């Protein structure tokens, strides 16, 4: 039986290597075999412009830099994404524009719930 992310391409923008590895494993458990990652705003933007993604997980703070430009690029391309953040009060600063948020550390089940709500269109074969 197909899993939630079978055949999906997911972009993970995350600057902590151990957190990235865990997210990759979580996504792999959901059937995702194509995970692309970026640790910086520049690389994330380059990837967003060059490739097609079905969904993305976006860390708000990339080594002190706000990942907002990446959020804009993803929105412009209609890629559904979820923010992840270690900040506790970020919402009050610039809001999440209605996007779902995973507060680190987050549970596998929380990620699954959010990805399920994305209601991704069937994979074309």
């Amino acid at each position, binding site marked *: 039986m197909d899993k939630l992310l079978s055949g999906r391409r997911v972009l993970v923008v995350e*600057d*902590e*290597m*151990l*957190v*990235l*590895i*865990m997210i990759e*494993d979580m996504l792999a458990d959901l059937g995702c075999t194509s995970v692309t*990652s970026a*640790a*910086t705003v520049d*690389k994330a933007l380059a990837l967003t412009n060059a490739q097609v993604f079905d969904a993305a997980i976006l860390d708000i*703070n990339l*080594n002190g830099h706000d990942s907002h430009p990446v959020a804009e690029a993803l929105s412009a391309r209609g890629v559904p994404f979820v923010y992840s*953040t*270690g*900040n*506790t*009060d970020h919402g009050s600063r610039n809001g999440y524009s209605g996007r779902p948020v995973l*507060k*680190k*550390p*987050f549970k596998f089940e929380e990620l699954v719930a959010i990805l399920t709500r994305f209601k991704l269109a069937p994979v074309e074969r």
Partner: protein
Amino acid sequence: MIQEKVRATVSTTCNQIDRPWHVGNNEKVCQQKVAEAEVESFRKDLGPFVVAAETTRMAMVFTDATKPDNPIIFANDSFLSLSGYDREEVLGKNFNFLIAHGADAEALTRIKSEFEGSSGSGAEVLCRREDGGEFWTDVFISPVRDEGGDIVQYFASFVDLTKHKEDEAQSKMLIDELNHRVKNTLSTVQSIVWQTLRSPSDPKVVRESIESRLFALSRSHDLLTREKWESAGLLDIVHDALEPFGVSGGRADRIAVKGENIRFPPKSALALGIAFNELATNAVKYGAFSNAAGSILIEWTMETTPTGQRLLLNWEEKDGPPVTPPAHKGFGSRVIERGLAHELEGTIHLDYRPDGLVCTMDIPLLRGTRDG
């Protein structure tokens, strides 16, 4: 009474010098003269107290409560140095001219209630300096009454809050940063637990590998704390990561470390510390440290390329048991090849040569990471 007299005198003078085509300007000059004269009368009235007010380090002004716009009639030197204005620019002006954003209704209300004596605790106000700069100050206002109990003047003192506000902002930033760091560290720990539990092992092995990784994190934190979380040198990162593996103990003569103490920012230092811990753990389990003869050479150089400086590092094991590539990529090799390469935006390669593991790192150095 003296003031009344002075005012009358000055008014007469003003009328004499009045010119119809310069009414506005002359009115101003006139007001100023009135104010200056009032300060003089003030000086006569209060004697030593005026000297005290003039020389104290606390910024203060007096205003004339009998005039509708409550003009400033006295300003001491501390006030002038705090605000940057000359005395002539201040005297005769409405008290509110100091407010940085004149339209700031809230600030005006705070000052009004301070004048009315209803705040009792002073008003925090953002003021404008002569040069356009702004400063926060606590304003305390008390009325000065005449014999009949009528308010004739207001006395206002200012406590400069600039330093306090800076400290406040700084500590808020530090707390935010600390919170962020704690949450990220907790995520990192979650990842370590998650990863370690993915490969089926007996509880003792699981506990030991979780501990080994947590202690590696902890040692990197210690190193960065000693360096005030500014940066850490590569020699120190390597040394501290290998400490539990006997770099300065039993295996000291089997480890050679050669390279400059290139500085890395905290996040990169943490990542490198974790990676070296994984390499050393692997060496103890399967590599050069799993027998009595093996040794490890860790060597690095810096190379200048058109895109900037790069670190070229070699971790070379020899004289250990014959090496065979692992059937599955474990946590260690993923952290090194995938994780570290990702976080430092470099290329890391693990080469399982039969005569010993070789790990090569090619990592871009950000500007300023090198030790002067």
